[in-house]
């Protein structure tokens, strides 16, 4: 049954439905409802919640719990995610599966607390030190957030890789009617023979990211990138909206894509042929569908819309590869564009 849920709380419940039993976090606006909810809800489920002394500690608790075989997660917002980056690099290096939620706010620095998308580069290009990728989802509404979160631990476990979900204050704070899927049976999850959980009869299992021999470390990097190639082949998710005959193709993710959709609906009513490609995974990025659209005769240009000074637009340009012009419209600092702003921009640009 559909119920009215606040975004952050729905995400927390979906994580539990997906098998999460351990949460480690630190307060920061606008994601506080996630740790608040987890603090009492995980106790009911026989898991554990720790309000860590810092973001740094929280992500390392995830390293411990997930390395010990549990489904564990943390959530934060932009400045807190910056603090977690070292730990995320360790998680990627040691191949510890876990889930990290970033409800983005405006930056740089302490910035503000209103919705923004300035952490795109940080999320998809690495963020911490070294060569690695998280699998990054950017769902567009609360139901999609719930559905992605529900399966996020499965994806993380499948590739032994951190999965990140990014949203913003808008998704976190708003309420929509949402259905939480059926709770996964923890006893039916695949075993984790690699996990460091004690009682292994003198055969050591090690959670580790140090490879002091350069050749070993190079081999390790190659192995990781083989895995990323597999992820790029299997896990790309996106939605196309009215692109069949579109002359202008919007590219936007998360809550911004909803604002674009409203603008597209208005423009279509006036007979202007616009559509949208909405990445649901931003790593792996939907390069191929964008390249295919760039080949189509009806597509005259792309318009990337972001709550940033222009970050994803670089990946759009790489995918379109000069075949068609790629325009950019952005607001930042926590200012959110209205559908009317985009309608006006498109009409004046024509």
């Amino acid at each position, binding site marked *: 049954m559909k119920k009215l849920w606040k975004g952050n709380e729905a995400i927390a419940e979906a994580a539990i439905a997906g098998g999460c039993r351990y949460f480690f976090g630190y307060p920061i606006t606008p994601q506080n409802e996630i740790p608040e909810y987890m603090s009492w809800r995980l106790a009911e489920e026989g898991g554990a919640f720790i309000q860590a002394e810092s973001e740094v500690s929280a992500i390392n608790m995830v390293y411990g719990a997930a390395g010990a075989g549990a489904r564990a997660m943390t959530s934060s917002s932009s400045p807190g995610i910056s603090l977690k980056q070292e730990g995320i690099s360790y998680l990627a290096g040691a191949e510890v599966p876990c889930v990290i939620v970033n409800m983005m706010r405006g930056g740089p620095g302490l910035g503000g607390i209103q919705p923004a998308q300035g952490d795109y580069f940080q999320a998809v290009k690495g963020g911490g030190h070294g060569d690695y990728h998280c699998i990054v989802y950017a769902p567009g509404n609360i139901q999609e957030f719930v559905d992605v979160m529900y399966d996020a631990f499965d994806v993380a476990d499948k590739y032994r890789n951190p999965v990140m979900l990014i949203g913003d204050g808008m998704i976190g704070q708003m309420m929509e*009617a949402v259905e939480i899927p059926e709770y996964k049976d923890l006893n039916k999850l695949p075993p984790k023979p690699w996990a460091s959980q004690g009682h292994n009869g003198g055969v050591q299992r090690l959670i580790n990211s140090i490879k002091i021999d350069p050749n070993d470390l190079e081999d390790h990097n190659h192995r990781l990138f083989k895995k990323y190639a597999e992820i790029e082949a299997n896990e790309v998710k996106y939605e196309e909206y009215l692109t069949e005959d579109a002359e202008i193709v919007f590219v936007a993710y998360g809550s911004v894509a*909803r604002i674009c959709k409203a603008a597209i609906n208005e423009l279509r009513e006036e007979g202007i042929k616009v559509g949208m490609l909405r990445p649901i995974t931003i790593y792996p990025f939907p390069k191929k569908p964008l390249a295919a659209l760039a080949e189509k005769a009806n597509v005259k240009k792309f318009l990337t819309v972001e709550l940033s000074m222009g970050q994803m637009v670089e990946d759009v340009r790489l995918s379109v590869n000069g075949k068609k012009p790629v325009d950019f419209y952005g607001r930042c600092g926590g200012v959110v564009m209205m559908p009317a702003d985009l309608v006006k921009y498109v009409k004046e640009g024509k």
Partner: protein
Amino acid sequence: MKVIISGFGGQGVLSLGKFISYSAIEQDFNTSWLPSYGPEMRGGTSNVSVIFDKNEIAAPVIDHPDILIAMNDPSLAKFEDTVKPGGYIITNSNIVKLPVTRKDVTVYEVPVDDLAEKINKRGGNIIMLGMLLPIFKEISEESAINAIKHVFEAKPKVIEPNIQCLKEGIAYMQNLMK
């Protein structure tokens, strides 16, 4: 239907929005409830954007609301110009002293606090919910009552007085619209 409700924190602005959303899902509408958050709430324009629609709700942000409910002066000043021509502005005239200058919208200035005083001091927002139903047309009294029952599940004592407030609001608005 797109509604912006705005006022001081403590005037029940966010919860009025929730009542609308709860009533709307009773009738299988899609609904979104998007609050302002952070320091803005302390500046006197705590507000919430509520949408309900049979179609998918694209943007949860509202550039031009069908209805503005202004519970104080800063809220009226901030949102008056954004209301869709032909739309509605409802003010709490016990608090709002600024005049509404728009001529292309329907304006109701309602002494909500006085009305609530008679039935249930804390029921001003439910009276407002009642007043919205004749304007919404598509949401039934029964759905709103179910929403009240749902929200106050843990406090059964307050359900009846709130239903009274709802009925008062509906009757008051029907009278105004005559």
